[in-house]
């Protein structure tokens, strides 16, 4: 068996709640995630379910409350976050954030935005080598060289997205985490960026964790999809299977909610209400209970765990 690119076990992040002594917000709760070399895994779920927190945990931008992360076999959680920043593993995992306007320093020219991580993470100081690496990254993402001396505000949304990606791949990561990389873009620009990402993965052999709320987008790039609900993974399945035969009632509602002109007049099941509070959730109640169309007595007595539904397919529901 190959070493997975990424293997997270029991990953948990709880935040103390201001003003309520002893109360904890369960942002990410006991998540297991494995990503193979070259694999692209999608991560979906409604806002607030913990996608960005999980992304930040994996990139070691924040410390987990519990759990371990192995990257190419190295335990990155053995180091404190401060020590990890200086470790060689830091360059292997890179994050591309949703809004490049926020993640790019407005007072840095494109050149500096891309070269900065190369110096910081790979220790490259030589101006000639730096120049080559910046230009190689810019070429890879199709960023015209004349834009390299510009500031972010002088770029279009699509160009800024390219800079965000160039900056991440310049340090040759083995895993790229993309947190809603196209949700601020118009569809025509999104199309270019999605094709670019597909092409880069093929050429550079990176693995992706692709976070998005748009299932039509996730489908295009990912071979396997992880569905989260209120901090927990509720279903993992190969892409086509997740769309055609979702097993968890939340996934079923999610898939049914995708707008689709081909199903204009079909009545589809709808999900009412809003999720329960992520603060001090009852460990013996399913997180989806109260909103779930099935919701039986058993669901309030015993929290469901992930069970095998078939090849490579798991779901956490008593009735799945």
């Amino acid at each position, binding site marked *: 068996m190959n070493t997975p690119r990424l293997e997270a076990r029991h990953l948990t992040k709880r935040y103390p709640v201001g003003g309520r002594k002893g109360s904890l917000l369960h942002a990410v709760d006991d998540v297991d995630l494995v990503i193979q070399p070259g694999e692209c895994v999608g991560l979906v779920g409604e806002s607030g379910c913990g996608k960005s927190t999980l992304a930040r945990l994996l990139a070691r931008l924040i410390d987990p409350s519990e759990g371990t992360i192995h990257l190419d076999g190295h335990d990155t959680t053995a180091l404190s976050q401060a020590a990890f920043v200086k470790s060689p593993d830091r360059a292997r995992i890179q994050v591309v954030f949703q809004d490049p306007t926020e993640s790019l320093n407005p007072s840095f020219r494109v050149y500096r935005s891309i070269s900065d991580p190369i110096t910081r993470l790979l220790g490259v100081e030589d101006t000639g080598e730096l120049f080559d690496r910046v230009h190689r990254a810019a070429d890879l993402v199709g960023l015209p060289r004349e834009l390299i001396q510009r500031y972010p505000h002088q770029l279009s949304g699509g160009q800024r997205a390219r800079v965000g990606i160039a900056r991440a791949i310049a340090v040759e990561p083995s895993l790229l985490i993309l947190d809603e990389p196209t949700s601020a873009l118009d569809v025509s620009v999104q199309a270019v960026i999605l094709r670019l990402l597909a092409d880069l993965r093929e050429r550079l052999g990176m693995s992706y964790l692709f976070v998005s*709320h748009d299932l039509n987008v996730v489908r295009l790039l990912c071979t396997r999809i992880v569905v989260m609900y209120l901090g927990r993974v509720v279903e993992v399945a190969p892409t086509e299977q997740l769309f055609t035969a979702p097993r968890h009632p939340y996934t079923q509602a999610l898939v049914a909610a995708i707008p689709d002109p081909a199903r204009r007049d079909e009545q589809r099941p709808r999900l009412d209400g809003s999720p329960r509070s992520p603060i001090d959730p009852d460990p013996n109640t399913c997180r989806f209970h109260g909103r779930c169309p099935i919701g039986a007595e058993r669901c309030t007595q015993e929290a469901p765990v992930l069970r095998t539904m078939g090849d490579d397919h798991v779901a956490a529901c008593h009735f799945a």
Partner: protein
Amino acid sequence: MSALLAIEELSLVFRTRHGTVRALEDVSLTVDRGEIVGVVGESGSGKSVMAYAALGLQDAAAQVLGGRILFGGLDMLNAAPDVLAATRGREVAMIFQSPRTALNPIRKVGQQIADVLLEHTTFRGAALRAQVIEALSRVRIPDPERRAEAYPFELSGGMCQRVMIAMALACSPALLIADEPTTGLDVTTQAVIMDLVREMSRTSRMSTLLITHDLGLAGEYCDRIAVMHAGHIVEIAPTVELLARPAHPYTRQLLASTPTPRTTIADLVSIPGQLPDLRQELPACRFSARCERHIPLCDERPLPWTVVAPGHAVRCRVPL
């Protein structure tokens, strides 16, 4: 048969320090009773400007160069301010993209709905209270009695949006103008809200102008769709017809760049170039610089409409 809302050959510019922005040129659109009409296009194409103009709401910098807007026979561009205000509140309702800024942060949401009803209906006392609860439960807000007592900050973004919609629908408006009403909401919530809008148009003959950048959403819910590009409506058709037989090259490209549940990454096409700068001299067809079908005739004014099928018109010299 006359339409409830008729925008006729509307041209509107913004006079700014940096020049004249030709935001709308010769825009015509009608919405019949009970009809849902979608307006789609990239950001900056003039969708919001048109929506506000339809309500007789314009920025101080705006100047109408020509055209008319008729709402139930009322001339919205020349009506007295008090007549306009009364019409807007009672017969036309608008939903904006960011509900939090549209709600009063220091007033309970139930009171805000009551305010609207007090102004425009004869409900008082217990009957008024009942109407408020009814308005909240219609948008499927769970536990409406308790939610009525909440302040906006105590509710999630999705809940606030539903309160906004409850408020907009409370007086049973004849026309709903919804500008990106579900952008930023989870797809499951989006589906519930859009189902409700559709139900209102079927049961109460409410007319809806749905502005969205999401062709999939427009494709599922609208009866007709107008495609906007750089301040022009370039094509208008019944939804099924538009999606099956787009006649304008821009519409075809917009469709090809929008992921659907059946798209593959190889199908995904982007639109070359970008929207022209609306402050510069513009050609007769504002898409010409991006268009692969462009011929010299395209530059001759005026650019005529061609009817390619019943109810299906396109503003292109070389339609598909």
